[in-house]
């Protein structure tokens, strides 16, 4: 009797945990909502500071979060369609529509990260202010490659090369910085933001790649964006 009861409880717990790990449309909507709202609050919350100062760093920082909001909108759009129709890949399911949506998502998400990197690096790079156009070109190339080569290995290589480039540039720049006090907290948040950005892209490009860790990725990504929003609101003030 005890053995049967134990088995029933075990099965119940297993099913419950399994259901929790299987993320549905509701989870996708909540996740996207949190990220999009955080990004837009950062964008609009810094509007006055940029309006008054016209500071390039603030401009690129704001644009980065606008692009994050757009990228996550298209990401959730892709995810909801896939979940609703029970498909794994959008391009196989809807070739033209899927390619366009994936192209836009890849372009916006690459630009979001490039703008964030540029907001920190612009003072060093501003000798040639056309560098941002180079990033737009690079984001376009990444978006085109993602559609042309529908190969998980290519996706993996492109995104981790990019992650390496962004984190390496960011860290080298910070280590060379003559600033006396560097913000360690910001350093960690930016590194995690770059890392989880790539994990979110991989989650879209390679279906079921992170199935087991998806909830963890969603919770951590939401935590990073909420931490950024908190830091911004604390500095900008609530008025």
């Amino acid at each position, binding site marked *: 009797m005890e053995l049967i009861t134990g088995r029933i409880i075990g099965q119940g717990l297993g099913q419950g945990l399994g259901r929790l790990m299987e993320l549905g449309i509701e989870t996708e909507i909540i996740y996207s909502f949190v990220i999009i709202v955080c990004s837009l609050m950062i964008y609009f919350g810094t509007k006055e*500071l940029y309006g008054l*100062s016209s500071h390039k*760093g603030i401009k*690129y920082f704001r644009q980065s979060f606008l692009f994050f909001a757009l990228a996550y909108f298209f990401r959730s759009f892709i995810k909801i369609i896939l979940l609703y129709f029970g498909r794994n890949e959008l391009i196989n399911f809807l070739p033209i529509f899927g390619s366009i949506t994936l192209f836009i998502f890849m372009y916006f998400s690459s630009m979001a990260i490039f703008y964030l990197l540029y907001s*920190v690096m612009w003072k060093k790079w501003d000798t040639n202010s056309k560098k941002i156009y180079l990033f737009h070109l690079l984001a376009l190339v990444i978006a085109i490659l993602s559609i042309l080569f529908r190969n998980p290995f290519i996706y993996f290589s492109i995104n981790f090369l990019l992650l390496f480039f962004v984190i390496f540039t960011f860290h080298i720049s910070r280590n060379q910085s003559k600033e006396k006090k560097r913000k360690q907290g910001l350093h960690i948040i930016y590194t995690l933001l770059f890392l989880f950005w790539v994990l979110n892209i991989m989650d879209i490009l390679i279906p079921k790649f992170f199935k087991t860790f998806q909830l963890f990725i969603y919770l951590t990504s939401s935590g990073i964006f909420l931490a950024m929003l908190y*830091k911004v609101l604390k*500095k900008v003030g609530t008025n």
Partner: protein
Amino acid sequence: MAKRNRLEIIRDILFIIRENHSIKPTPLLRKSNLSSFRFKKYYLELLNKEFIKETYRKNKQISLTEKGSKYLEKYSTIINFIDEFEL
């Protein structure tokens, strides 16, 4: 003395105007410690952004607008924000 950045120069110019309520262009140029070329550049920027306004009585007088006062009020917030995010 360290070279002032763009935001500091704007703050200094606006601060001088606020201290004097309204001021003529020549004393403002002198007090802002800028070359006439750089002063003209900043002056036009402040006029275009409506931080300052010109009024004519006997002579041309420069005074602060509400937006200019807002800049001075928010200056430390702007600097703290730039510093916090290393922008």
